[in-house]
């Protein structure tokens, strides 16, 4: 039981500070001024209403709707109903001991290379309340990850992030299944326990942070929804930037007058508002070799959502050949059917990779697409046969286009281990991109 004494007495301030600290530990950015706002607000409401109390804290402390699930979970656990608080000291002590034992056991089970993962006690408590099936599944995933090729110590933070996301996912899923608040008997709310649902914002966060390669068929519909939402959001931003705004080379009257006052108001020097940048031309090159085709499919889905915002969009797939997919990707309709059609007629999907040959074909067959306004986005792990030829072609491409943005699904930590990555990174703007969140971030910053 985390709450100190009753809410209605002088412990309110203290409890509020403890509560906000827990929220901060869970990653919610809560400033001191917001805590002060919460305290001031509580003085304005009827504290006997639990609902009002909750709404007040939510309005003053939570400034992102995605954080509401997490807030509700912690609130229900922290501000448990009075009957929970009325349990005897013995029960409380026994419960605390049970919790401590479970947390200890969780710490022993969640390890990487024999060392415990860096998780907070709340996260360990969440893990301990998962069902045995869920715990086994998470352990199996960790074991599989641990025994992977080239998986060493630098991989630890990535694994920690995945485990944390998974715990958030389970917690949020459980919230969806729950109709009641805290469970009776002083046990942690079931909201802190296992059970994975879908559709919540935390669940979407989890899927956005998941390696695209690991996304299962069951999770695909929700992932597609996320991609659709993100690409729609980005499309709106791109379209807005393209509209002719007031800065499009108009006279800046204010600055002109101010600068010309010294000449008695006669305009000698006209000051202009800065012009906007010209719209770019996007050329997408997707590596659809066996190891890359899943990543490329997700990137294509994303770009399909942008097809109307990015008018000059060209899409190519490559493995040991180059194929133009522009017309298909620009079509309206279900991306499933479009991808199915592309894969069905394609001779490149699932083959080996010959980057050099593909770039050479691009240069010779589609020279009109390559100019200084073109941004080339390549989705590839850089693994290719004939690396020297690829580097030579990449260098030529780099001279002809505005820039090359390379989305590499390999984690940044692993780049040093691959000569091809280092060579390509020297010629392009390379970004690690194996999750949907990373894809959104990179594209939002570049388009």
């Amino acid at each position: 039981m985390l709450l100190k004494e009753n809410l209605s007495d002088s412990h309110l301030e203290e409890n509020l500070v403890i509560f906000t600290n827990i929220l901060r530990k869970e990653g919610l950015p809560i400033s001191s001024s917001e805590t002060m706002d919460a305290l001031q607000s509580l003085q304005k409401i009827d504290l006997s209403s639990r609902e009002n109390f909750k709404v007040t804290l939510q309005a003053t402390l939570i400034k992102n709707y995605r954080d509401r699930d997490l807030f509700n979970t912690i609130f229900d656990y922290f501000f448990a109903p009075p009957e929970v608080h009325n349990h005897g000291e013995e029960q409380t002590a026994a419960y605390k001991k049970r919790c401590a034992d479970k947390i200890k056991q969780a710490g022993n089970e969640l390890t990487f290379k024999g060392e415990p993962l860096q998780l907070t006690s709340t996260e360990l408590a969440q893990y301990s309340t998962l069902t045995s099936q869920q715990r086994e599944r998470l352990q199996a995933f960790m074991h599989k990850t641990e025994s992977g090729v080239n998986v060493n110590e630098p991989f630890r933070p990535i694994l920690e992030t995945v485990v944390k996301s998974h715990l958030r996912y389970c917690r949020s899923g459980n919230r969806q299944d729950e109709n009641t608040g805290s469970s009776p008997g002083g046990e942690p709310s079931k909201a802190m326990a296992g059970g994975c649902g879908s559709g919540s914002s935390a669940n979407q966060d989890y899927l956005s942070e998941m390696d695209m390669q690991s996304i299962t068929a069951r999770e695909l519909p929700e992932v597609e929804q996320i991609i659709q939402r993100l690409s729609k959001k980005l499309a709106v931003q791109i379209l807005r930037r393209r509209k002719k705004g007031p800065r499009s080379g108009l006279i800046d009257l204010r600055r002109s007058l101010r600068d010309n006052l010294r000449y008695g108001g006669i305009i000698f020097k006209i000051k202009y508002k800065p012009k906007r940048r010209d719209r770019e031309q996007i050329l997408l090159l997707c590596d659809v070799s066996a190891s890359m085709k899943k990543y490329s499919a997700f990137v294509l889905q994303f770009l399909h959502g942008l097809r109307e915002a990015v008018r000059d969009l060209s899409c190519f797939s490559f493995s040991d050949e180059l194929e133009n997919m522009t017309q298909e990707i620009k079509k309206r309709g279900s991306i499933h059917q479009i991808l199915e059609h592309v894969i069905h007629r394609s001779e490149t999907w699932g083959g080996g990779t010959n980057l050099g040959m593909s770039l050479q074909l691009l240069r010779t067959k589609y020279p009109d697409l390559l100019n200084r306004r073109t941004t080339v986005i390549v989705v590839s792990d850089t693994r290719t046969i004939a690396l020297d030829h690829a580097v030579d072609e990449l260098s030529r491409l780099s001279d002809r286009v505005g820039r090359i943005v390379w989305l590499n699904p390999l984690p940044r930590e692993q780049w040093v281990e691959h000569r091809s990555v280092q060579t390509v990174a020297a010629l392009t703007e390379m970004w690690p991109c194996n999750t949907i969140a990373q894809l959104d971030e990179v594209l939002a910053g570049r388009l």
Partner: protein
Amino acid sequence: MNLTLADLKKGFKEAGYICDDSTALTVFLTLELKKPLLIEGAPGVGKTEMGKVLAEILHTALIRLQCYEGLDETKALYEWNYQRQLLRIQMNRNLEEEQVKEEDLFSEQYLLERPLLKAIRALETPVLLIDEVDKCDPEFEAFLFEILSDFQVSIPELGTVQANQIPAVVLTSNNERELSDGLKRRCLYLYLDFPTVEEEVEIIRAKVPGAADRLAWDIARVAANLRRQGDLRKKPSIAETLDWARALVFLSKKRLDGKLVSETLNLILKTRADQDFFKAEIGSQGIEDILKQGKDGG
């Protein structure tokens, strides 16, 4: 502003703004704390309407600043009346008087108030609605910090202008881009979702009194179902369902059916792609099923 929570709830009801208790409480707290209220939510859930209704409840003026990309302080805060300044310079020259001084030109009489300055200098507490703040540039968002935290603005030529009355500020955002932590920290936060079927029925009853009970329920059910369709580009807003209800009342309709929905589709689905999606995935038969389910479910 001596307004109790009960008064506020009553005010919302009288203004025909149907909202739950948590929304009313959040608005009440923003008024009590004199803090800005940031409202986020999908387009068409009633964010802007909140500002208008609040002005109505408080019997005060609504000052609206519509944000857009490229909005700067000359459009939002103040601008100098350049034509008048030039005239003054010219007049002085013709009269061969002493050269006009800069401080004479940058004085109150040449100042053009824009919404933010107008709200700050208002003698009676106004409601300042900063609409679609997510559409403005991050630089302008940072510029709002000073106003929203201290309710004062700095005009280089005149100095700092303090608010006569702290305005009730409502900021709305469609959440198209993430707002900065600094801005969020200065506001209380409210997320408005689309109404439940029951709430929407109440809204229709309040705003379209001529709508038959059955028709209101049918419209609310169909609208709720369409909003659940992930593939729709633009989900029907509350204003659109109200327009739809008004049109159906005008056509003397007492209930919906699949054919009628297909015929009046233009009123709720405003893009060709969405209409095609409706025809392909839902159609008249889908509407009949939705209405039947609603009827069976009471």
